């Protein structure tokens, strides 16, 4: 696409500098970044006044420990620190350091794994301490991660696509399948991946996780961006149109089925009875609950609005909640928030700034320690969240 866009380089502009110098700017709205010195001074003064008021109130009205609000600590710090939310219901979080900015997270074999696209490595994190305890070198850039049984699946991007499996105890590469890439998902049937075959129709492939043999193909017309399992069905997100399709139904029936017409995000989270997605469907506008962008797709393919969160980015389902990243343009919500999977009520948020630049999964649930992990906005830190 960039090559086609270069046709714009054929356009010729007259030199406008003289026009710039003589032009009287039209009346304008203040721009962000403009008058930053005055603004910084105003903020600093406001902060001082606010701090004074807080100190005064705290001095005059001492509270019991059970009423004290946890400290909000958003800037990354080299040593573990506490970062908690006070927005709806506070969720405690610690901050841990990585060697360099990570793009994707997964939990496998009782460890948390962070993809390092810049160094072609995966870092292994001990969830009990938050320390990086091993770094595994790869022959390509780790674009997608997925958990398997005692194995971490890694899809390598670049010129030579491949999927490798890393033994979660020995850190050795025990599996390689060439020509397949992510998104990845292990189900009872096998390891799901993607095989790009343009201009022919593309394939979702199911691999035997022990031998790497292809168990079966599911023909699709597009490139999937995320994949999620639910009750024996597998769903994938079409990166081109933003729609979510059913790759295979419980019972083994293959084939793709469009279930929504306007998805607004690029993440899926699955549970036993369906998947959560960021979607808006035109015929749901009149449905009870309105047409918010949080949606739930049941196993039969029907989509219903779920909650009402603008730009809903579902990550994982844990503790009877779907955890999603909100902000900074989502109204009152900000951070990693939790929506009750029965009612659609958002009842807690960790006020942390989750990194979305990597685009894949910046959040993982580690079941042995019952902790959630999220990559920070800078990518260089991991938040450990204890709901």
């Amino acid at each position, binding site marked *: 696409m960039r090559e*086609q*866009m270069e046709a*714009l380089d054929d356009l010729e502009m007259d030199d*406008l*500098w003289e026009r*710039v110098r003589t032009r009287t*700017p039209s009346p304008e709205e203040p721009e962000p970044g403009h008058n930053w010195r*005055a603004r910084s001074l105003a903020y600093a003064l406001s902060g001082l006044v606010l701090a004074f008021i807080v100190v005064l109130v705290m001095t005059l009205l001492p509270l019991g420990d059970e009423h004290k609000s946890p400290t909000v600590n958003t800037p990354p710090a080299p040593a573990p620190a506490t970062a908690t939310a006070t927005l709806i219901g506070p969720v405690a979080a610690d901050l841990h350091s990585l060697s360099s900015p990570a793009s994707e997270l997964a939990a496998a074999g009782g460890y948390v794994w962070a993809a390092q696209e810049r160094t072609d490595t995966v870092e292994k994190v001990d969830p009990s301490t938050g320390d990086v305890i091993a770094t595994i070198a790869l022959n390509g850039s780790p674009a997608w991660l997925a958990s398997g049984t005692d194995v971490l699946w890694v899809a390598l991007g670049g010129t030579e696509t491949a999927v490798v499996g890393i033994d979660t105890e020995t850190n050795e590469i025990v599996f390689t399948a060439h020509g397949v890439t992510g998104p990845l998902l292990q189900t009872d049937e096998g390891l799901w991946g993607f095989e790009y075959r343009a201009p022919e129709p593309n394939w979702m492939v199911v691999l035997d996780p022990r031998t790497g043999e292809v168990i079966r193909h599911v023909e699709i017309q597009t490139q999937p961006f995320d994949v999620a399992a639910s009750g024996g069905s597998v769903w994938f997100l079409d990166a081109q149109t933003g729609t979510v399709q059913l790759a295979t139904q419980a019972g083994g029936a293959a084939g793709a089925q469009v279930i929504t017409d306007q998805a*607004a995000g690029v993440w899926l989270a699955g549970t036993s009875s369906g998947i959560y997605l960021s979607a808006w469907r035109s015929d749901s506008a009149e449905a009870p609950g309105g047409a918010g962008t949080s949606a739930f797709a049941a196993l039969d393919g029907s989509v219903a609005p779920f909650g009402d969160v603008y730009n809903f980015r579902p990550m994982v389902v844990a503790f009877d909640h779907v955890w999603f990243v909100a902000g900074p343009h989502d109204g009152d919500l900000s951070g990693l928030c939790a929506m009750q999977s029965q009612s659609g009520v958002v009842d807690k948020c960790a006020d942390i700034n989750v990194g979305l630049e990597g685009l894949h999964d910046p959040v993982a649930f580690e079941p042995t320690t019952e902790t959630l992990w999220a990559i920070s906005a800078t990518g260089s830190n991991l938040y450990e969240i204890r709901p």
Partner: protein
Amino acid sequence: MEGARGASLFGLGVAEARVQETDFTRLCMTVVDDAQMEEASAEVERVYQAEALKMWRAIVGYAGDPEIADDAVAEAFARALHHRDSIQDLRAWTWRVAFRFAAAELRTQVGRAEAHPVDPSEPSAEAADLVAALRRLSERQRLALVLHDYADRPTAEVAAILGCSTATVHVHLSRGRKRLRALLEVRDA
């Protein structure tokens, strides 16, 4: 005090020396201010030389009208000259202002026949075709594509201009690329 002592050496009284000192200080401050203003103006011109052409072409891709692009670029840098000492990131600021100005101009054109489309005969039919194809995308898709895929602006900056999250920018990019590819394939066929 040093100024007063120095001034008295030239035969001036203390009161006169204080007046002279104040004037001298004002003069120095004016010279310093002028130097800072000149430096700031030179900085605006440097950014203009580095960015204006790319910015103008990107705006033509977005607005489909070279006259809007002329106005938007001239307005952004004229404003930059006006506010030169209070802008933190001049490069990002001018891109943002230029595109917002172009967007506002486009809105005023809706329903009016004031567009000045790119002439297909010059300088290349490919450019004119591309601009025509871009015009068939949604405004946000077009904006995301020209800023990211043509002008190499980071997604965070595109998000700031569009007023949305980076994830939404990626969705606009993805859909816009597909649609544009299809439109250009029809043209080539």
